[in-house]
């Protein structure tokens, strides 16, 4: 570890996100407040007022403008930051696609919340899921410390000359946004040093007044196909790059998260549970107690969702007798949850083992210890070749 030891401080997930963003020295910040993300904007505004954040803060009338501004600033060469959630994310949907198409390396925090239709002011990953095909990198974190560390890593991923893609760092609204935990805020000099390799890379193209060039305006026919192909290839490169940066971060700061996925007690496991976000922390506790009972169960924490970590997952899940996937969102038009649907697409690599889908934790309901215990027990039964229920909406099977 090269980083200076710092005294832990207690702060919320939102506060942690704001601190991390400040430490990365963004030059332009445009963000519109929305529950449960508001504190991020408040804190960044406070940093600006206190003179510790040297960024152009643009007051916007909505998220659509916020994304347009950070996208444009990014194309002009600036380092940018924004944050949103749910309604805000969908209100910027067109500009979200545009930013990805322009390959603008915007770093955005998305505080996961349920989406419009039902006026849900509550946690859920539906917002992130609804933008999975927007061409952004999407990564999900588990706790306040990981929020800080992943935001810092996000700049190394998005702004890398071989990547040049926007990245969305997701964390559970309510569970993490308002949860106060002890975190280590890295020293500014260490963050500067960690981000310094970006300065040695070739300069990405940028808008220069007076120079006759532009981005995204000439995507006709094969121009369009070529741009899309390059975009998909860049997303494919993101997978190994996430692992590389995570390793480098670990060497520098002494904390790492497994990169694309974290495998917890998977090596000798017969069955594996897949979870993401704050639920992964709870799942780890349940894995430990089931292990104490003699059940060989492991956990895969899905961190990278787009691009989908196909190779790493196949490696981790190959040879397992059954798999249970916990989704905090639904896939309209599919029976199984979105992450489960995608894990099922690995069948040609991992074999036709039972893959059980669990929908839980929608609308602020807890993905709690008994729920995860039940998932493990049912997956263990399925692993013995016994009949199983393909999809289970856990809260719908409970009497309240």
């Amino acid at each position, binding site marked *: 570890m090269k980083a200076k030891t710092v005294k832990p401080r207690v702060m919320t997930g939102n506060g942690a996100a704001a601190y991390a963003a400040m430490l990365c020295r963004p030059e332009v910040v445009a963000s519109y407040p929305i529950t449960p993300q508001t504190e991020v904007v408040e804190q960044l505004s406070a940093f600006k007022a206190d003179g510790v954040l040297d960024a152009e803060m643009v007051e916007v009338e909505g998220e659509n403008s916020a994304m347009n501004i950070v996208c444009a600033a990014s194309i002009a060469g600036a380092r940018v930051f924004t944050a949103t959630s749910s309604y805000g994310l969908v209100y910027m949907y067109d500009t979200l696609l545009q930013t990805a198409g322009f390959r603008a390396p915007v770093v955005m925090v998305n505080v996961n919340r349920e989406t419009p239709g039902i006026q849900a002011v509550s946690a859920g990953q539906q917002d992130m899921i609804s933008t999975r095909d927007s061409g952004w990198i999407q990564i999900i974190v588990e706790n306040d410390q990981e929020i800080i560390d992943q935001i810092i890593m996000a700049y190394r991923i998005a702004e890398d*000359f071989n990547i040049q893609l926007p990245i969305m760092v997701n964390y559970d609204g309510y569970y993490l946004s308002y949860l106060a935990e002890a975190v280590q805020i890295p020293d500014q000099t260490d963050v500067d040093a960690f981000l310094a390799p970006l300065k040695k890379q070739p300069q990405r*193209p940028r808008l220069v007044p007076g120079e006759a*060039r532009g981005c995204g305006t*000439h995507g*006709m*026919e*094969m*121009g369009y196909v*070529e*741009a899309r192909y390059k975009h998909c290839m860049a997303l494919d490169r993101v997978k190994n790059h996430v692992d590389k940066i995570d390793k480098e971060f670990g060497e520098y700061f002494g904390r790492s998260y497994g990169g694309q996925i974290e495998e917890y007690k998977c090596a000798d496991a017969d069955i594996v549970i897949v979870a993401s976000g704050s639920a992964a922390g709870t799942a780890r506790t349940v894995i430990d107690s089931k292990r104490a009972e003699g059940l060989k169960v492991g956990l895969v924490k899905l961190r990278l969702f787009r691009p989908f970590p196909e190779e790493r997952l196949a490696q981790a899940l190959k040879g397992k007798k059954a798999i249970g996937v916990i989704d905090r969102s639904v896939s309209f038009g599919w029976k199984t949850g979105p992450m489960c649907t995608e894990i099922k697409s690995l069948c040609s690599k991992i074999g036709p083992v039972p893959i059980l889908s669990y929908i839980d934790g929608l609308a602020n309901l807890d993905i709690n210890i008994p729920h995860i215990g039940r998932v493990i027990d049912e997956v263990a039964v399925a692993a013995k070749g016994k009949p199983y229920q393909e999809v289970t909406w856990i809260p719908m099977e409970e009497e309240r």
Partner: protein
Amino acid sequence: MVIKHKNIFETESCWSNADKQMLCLDTGGWRTERPVLDQTKCNYCGLCCLYCPPQCMLDKGDHYEANLAFCKGCGICAHECPRGALTMVPEGEFGNEG
């Protein structure tokens, strides 16, 4: 997969330099009628040029003329001309001249 395509963009992202290369939208091919100028009525006011959506009006010194490679035949110039100097004429009347 064997890639036979030769890259159009020099950059990883879809940047293009207008001085070197542009992938132009062939809006001229959309045209079903074109603006024809009666130069005796034109006083070179430039309103047609200001209103032209693809900005294809060429300054000819004493009048403006649509660049037919881009003019999509929308007719806004003829509509806006206060002196009625522009008339939209169906493409069929020009044969295959372009």
